[in-house]
C-alpha cells in the first residue's frame, strides 16, 4: 500500500538532516589545509553519525560514539595536533610525480564502485527494526551485554588483551632513554670550581644591577670600582634589545651637585684667605 502522503518517520528526518551535514563536514575535513580545521570538521562528522545511530535504534552506540569517539579519541587527536602540528600547513609539493591526480582517480573509482554496488540493488521491504531484539532482555544495553558477555565473550577478552598491549606499546614508544647522567648539585659545584681553575671564570653569583639615587631597575648596569660598567650585571636579553639605561645620564645630577658643592667650598675657602 502506498500512502498518499509519504509517511515521514523521525529516522528519515534525522537522515536527511544529518547525512548532508556529515558529508559537508567530511569534505571540509578533506579540503582544509590546516590540521586543526580538519580535526574540528571530523568532530562534526562523528557527532552527526552519532545522531544517525540514535535514529536507528542503537542508543548505546549513540552514547559511546559521542563519549568515546568524539570525546576521547578525537580529543586525543586534537591534543596531538596542538602539540606538534598546530601551525604547519599541509604541503602542496608533490614528492611523487602525478601523485595527487592518481590518488584522486583511485578515490573516485572506489567511490563510484562502492556507491553503484550499494545503489544497484534494493534490500526489499521495510527493515525488521531492532525493537524486538532490544526488548528481548529489556532494553538495548542489556541485550547488547547478553551478546557481548555470552556469544562474543572470547572476542571481548581478546580486546582487553589488545587494549593492554596498546597501552604498554604506547609507554614503550613514548619512553626516551636519558643520554647523559643527570647532574647533581655536587657535580655542578665541581664543574664550577674546575671552570674557575681552568678559565678563571668567577664561581660565585653574577653581580646585581646598579642602584642609583633615582633608579634601581634591572636595566641599569652596576659600576665597577674604577667607574666602568660591569657588563654581567645586566641581562644579555636587555642588552640586545637596547633598553639598557646610559649610566652617565644617571650620574650627571650627582656629578653636577658635587661640582656645585666643590665650587661653593672653594669660594668659601677663598673668602677666608
Amino acid at each position, binding site marked *: 500500500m502506498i500512502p498518499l502522503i509519504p509517511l515521514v518517520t523521525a529516522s528519515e528526518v534525522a537522515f536527511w538532516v544529518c547525512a548532508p551535514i556529515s558529508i559537508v563536514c567530511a*569534505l571540509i*575535513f578533506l579540503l582544509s589545509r590546516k590540521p586543526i580545521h580538519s580535526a574540528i570538521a571530523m568532530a562534526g562528522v562523528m557527532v552527526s553519525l552519532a545522531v544517525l545511530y540514535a535514529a536507528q535504534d542503537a542508543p548505546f552506540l549513540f552514547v559511546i560514539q559521542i563519549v568515546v569517539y568524539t570525546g576521547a579519541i578525537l580529543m586525543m587527536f586534537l591534543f596531538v595536533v596542538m602539540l*606538534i602540528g598546530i601551525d604547519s600547513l599541509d604541503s602542496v609539493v608533490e614528492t611523487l610525480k602525478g601523485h595527487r591526480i592518481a*590518488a584522486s582517480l583511485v578515490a573516485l573509482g*572506489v*567511490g563510484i564502485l562502492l556507491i553503484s554496488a550499494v545503489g544497484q540493488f534494493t534490500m526489499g521491504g521495510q527493515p525488521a527494526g531492532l525493537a524486538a531484539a532490544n526488548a528481548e532482555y529489556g532494553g538495548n544495553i542489556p541485550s547488547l551485554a547478553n551478546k557481548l558477555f555470552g556469544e562474543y565473550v572470547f572476542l571481548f577478552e581478546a*580486546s582487553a588483551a589488545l*587494549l593492554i598491549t596498546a597501552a604498554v*606499546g604506547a609507554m614503550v614508544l613514548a619512553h626516551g632513554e636519558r643520554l647523559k647522567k643527570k647532574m647533581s648539585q655536587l657535580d655542578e659545584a665541581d664543574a664550577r670550581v674546575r671552570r674557575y681553575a681552568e678559565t678563571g671564570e668567577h664561581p660565585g653569583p653574577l653581580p646585581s644591577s646598579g642602584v642609583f639615587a633615582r633608579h634601581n631597575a634591572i636595566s641599569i648596569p652596576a659600576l665597577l670600582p674604577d667607574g666602568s660598567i660591569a657588563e654581567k650585571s645586566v641581562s644579555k636579553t636587555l642588552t640586545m634589545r637596547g633598553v639598557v639605561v646610559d649610566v652617565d645620564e644617571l650620574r650627571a645630577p650627582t656629578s653636577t651637585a658635587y661640582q656645585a658643592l666643590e665650587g661653593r667650598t672653594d669660594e668659601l675657602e677663598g673668602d677666608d684667605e
Partner: protein
Amino acid sequence: MNPEGFLVLSAILFTIGLAGFLLRRNAIIAFLSIELMLNATNLAFVAFARFHGNLDGLVAAFFVMVVAAAEVVIGLAIIVAVYRSRRSASVDDANLMKL
C-alpha cells in the same frame, strides 16, 4: 527508512576517508582519515543490524571502536616519536631510507 540511504552515505564517507588518506601529507590527518573510514563501516554495520533485526551488527561496531581506540594509542605514539626525532609530522619528511 530503508537502509540503502545509510549504505550510500557510508560509501560516500568511506570514499572521502580514502581520498584523505591518499592525498593528505600530514601524518595526523592521514590517520584521522582511517578513523573516518572506520566510522563509515560502523554506519553500514548499524544499518544492516537494523535491517536484519539482530544485534550482532551493533556488537561488531562496538569492537571496531575498541580496535580504533587501541590503534589510535599506538599510532599517535608513533607520530609523536617520529616528530621528536624529525621535528616534522609530514609523511614526506620520513624519507631517510630513500636513495
